[in-house]
């Protein structure tokens, strides 16, 4: 393939640009949708990864009748004896239903005198430590999303909880916090443990669940087995379980999306086939003249092939550029609901800008060959036109 041919093809495309606009538009739109959806998914996956890395290696939940119930706190003393465990903590937490906005807060009880297993929360505690030390009533530290909601409902300096056992609990709002990924912390309220117990009516010797930290990841499975044998009534969830279930969910969602998209591909294919088959009189004349001046069928095929490559690569990059702008600069309005669902206190996280070249490769290999294959037969039909037939 020589340079002159490429030059000629580009010139001819410039001349006929208006005719190709419909195809370029459809192609660009298709690539745009695909890149958007797949990069939203991979960006959320990245945000989740950050969250998952903060999780403890094992979580022990007591089960009763298929539902999670409160676990006796003194089991900690049995667990800590297992070799390979660096830290065991009970967690007191739950969902607090806020009627005015019809949302659930995640209320996390923290023992402010101890190191928490999440480094992120420790930073917050250190940040507010002087304030914490000087307060002796109930107080809360809220995530950003909650802060906005509370201000909207005129809770500026304090908030009143309804206790499960009846009665109210007034608490001061000490401050807010945010983190690298808002996905997890947006709806979180931190509060001293004893007050959370009071609100949810959890007695002193029980807790919501127990977390276990294991420094050596290769020992996790064995410790998990040991714990399972010690407490047959418990469900032990490891960080790996959570991670792979996330991966599955997102692959599943993008997979379903792609599968649905197959119908769009068929119509795309037909559209292009149809568009490329309809040769106008002018096109036929052009090919006839080219043949008359000595072009071979082979050369015309090459030209058509080049044309296909140029159009598809141009549209691909245009679509990709638009999609990346839409996802990371505009934060993908509408489309991200596909993954996050709709709720009042939806985690207001930022989609972290990552260009996933794997995703781009995937979409490239899906769209560009499809386009070129669709134009294959029509351009062959064009190329075999006889010169004398057209020019006569």
């Amino acid at each position, binding site marked *: 393939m020589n340079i002159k041919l490429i030059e000629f093809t580009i010139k001819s495309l410039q001349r006929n640009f208006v005719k190709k606009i419909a195809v370029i538009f459809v192609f660009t739109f298709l690539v745009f949708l695909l890149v958007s959806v797949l990069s939203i998914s991979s960006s959320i996956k990245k945000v989740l990864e950050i969250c998952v890395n903060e999780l403890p290696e094992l979580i022990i939940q007591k089960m009763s009748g298929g539902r999670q119930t409160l676990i006796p706190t003194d089991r900690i003393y049995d667990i800590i004896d297992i070799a390979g465990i660096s830290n065991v903590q009970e967690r007191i937490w739950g969902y607090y239903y806020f009627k005015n906005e019809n949302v659930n807060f995640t209320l996390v009880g923290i023992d402010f005198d101890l190191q928490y297993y999440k480094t992120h929360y420790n930073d917050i505690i250190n940040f507010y430590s002087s304030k914490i030390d000087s307060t002796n009533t109930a107080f809360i530290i809220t995530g950003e999303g909650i802060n906005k909601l509370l201000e909207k409902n005129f809770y500026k300096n304090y908030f009143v909880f309804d206790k499960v056992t009846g009665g109210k609990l007034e608490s001061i709002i000490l401050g807010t916090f945010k983190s690298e990924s808002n996905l997890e912390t947006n709806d979180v309220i931190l509060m001293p443990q004893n007050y959370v117990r009071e609100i949810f009516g959890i007695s002193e010797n029980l807790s919501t669940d127990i977390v276990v930290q294991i420094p050596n990841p290769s020992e996790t499975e064995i410790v998990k087995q040991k714990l399972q044998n010690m407490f047959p009534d418990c469900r032990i969830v490891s960080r790996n379980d959570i991670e792979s279930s996330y991966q599955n969910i997102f*692959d599943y969602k993008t997979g379903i999306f*792609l599968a649905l998209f197959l119908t769009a591909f068929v119509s795309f294919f037909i559209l292009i086939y149809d568009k490329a088959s309809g040769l106008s009189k002018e096109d036929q004349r052009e090919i006839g003249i080219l043949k008359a001046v000595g072009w071979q069928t082979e050369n015309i095929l090459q030209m058509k092939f080049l044309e296909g490559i140029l159009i598809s690569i141009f549209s691909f990059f245009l679509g990709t550029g638009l999609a990346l702008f839409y996802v990371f600069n505009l934060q993908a309005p509408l489309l991200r609901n596909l993954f996050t669902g709709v709720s009042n206190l939806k985690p207001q996280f930022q989609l972290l800008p990552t260009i996933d070249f*794997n995703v781009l490769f*995937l979409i490239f290999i899906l769209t560009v060959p499809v386009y070129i294959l669709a134009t294959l037969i029509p351009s*062959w039909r064009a190329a075999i036109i006889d010169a004398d037939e057209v020019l006569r």
Partner: protein
Amino acid sequence: MSILISPEVIVLFVIDFLLLIFNSIAAIISYKIFKNFNLSETTSTQYNLEKQSYLASYIIKFSLYLKIISIIFFIYTLDKLSNIIPGAMCAVGVTTSSDYGIYLLIVKLINIYLFGFWILVNNKDMEDENFPFTKSKFKYFLFIYFFFLSELIVQILYFFDINLQKIVSCCSTVFNEETSSVVGQITNIPNYISVPIFYFSFFTLLYFTLKKKLRFIGITNLFFLIFSLITLTSFFGTYIYELPTHHCPFCILQKDYNFIGYFLYAFLFLGTFFGISIFVLKYFLDINLNRYNWSLFFISVYVLLVTFFPVKYYLINGVWL
């Protein structure tokens, strides 16, 4: 179920489905040409056949390009799937998770060689005004089509056979000395035998190619290819990873090793492709293909690249692995 709905697998099947449709068209045309083509006739059927031969060769050419891209994509897919399949850490684990995996890889490779030979024949055919090889090249395509179909069938069997619950063994076990797997046994020819054979076959290859001894070029190339793959996993790979226990032909394709594998495989396959094609084209179609220099160039670069790693390791550390 979830492996079939993962995006990469869907894309692989979409591409193969399209290729199936178009290659079937090409196969039908090929059959007609093989039956009725006669350049001395001036009937309209003959005229139509000549026109259709352009379409068929156009499709086949494009199939080759797409197949080369799709085999890279296939390897990438295997690496990606290793996240989901328990026990798999790279493409080896995913390949061994079904019995069909290794055959699928082999068939895919053979197909690329076959399509490549076809393109070479086609180019020779187009150079001549009398189209001397038209009939034989389309007969040959019918043979390729059979391989292409078998690749598709094996691929379908493979992806349906993968069991996400089954724990698979990955590279360190598959290529281990105590292994029972066939692949492991082959790659376990001790290094003091396989590495000299590798260099020996390289030098005989050099000799035959420079002397243009056609009959031996094909055989030595094939021999060289096999021993390149064996020594790459069992010997040279360990120097790239700088770890004596890491035997793996796929991990060199990963980012941790600067994607060096893609270069290595590209040079190895291109070199042996031209080497074998000189022999195949001469033997079956009596075409003289003057690609000796290309073959020599690619193979020498491969050998130099691969030799570089142990030498570098020795110069830096003063010991062999």
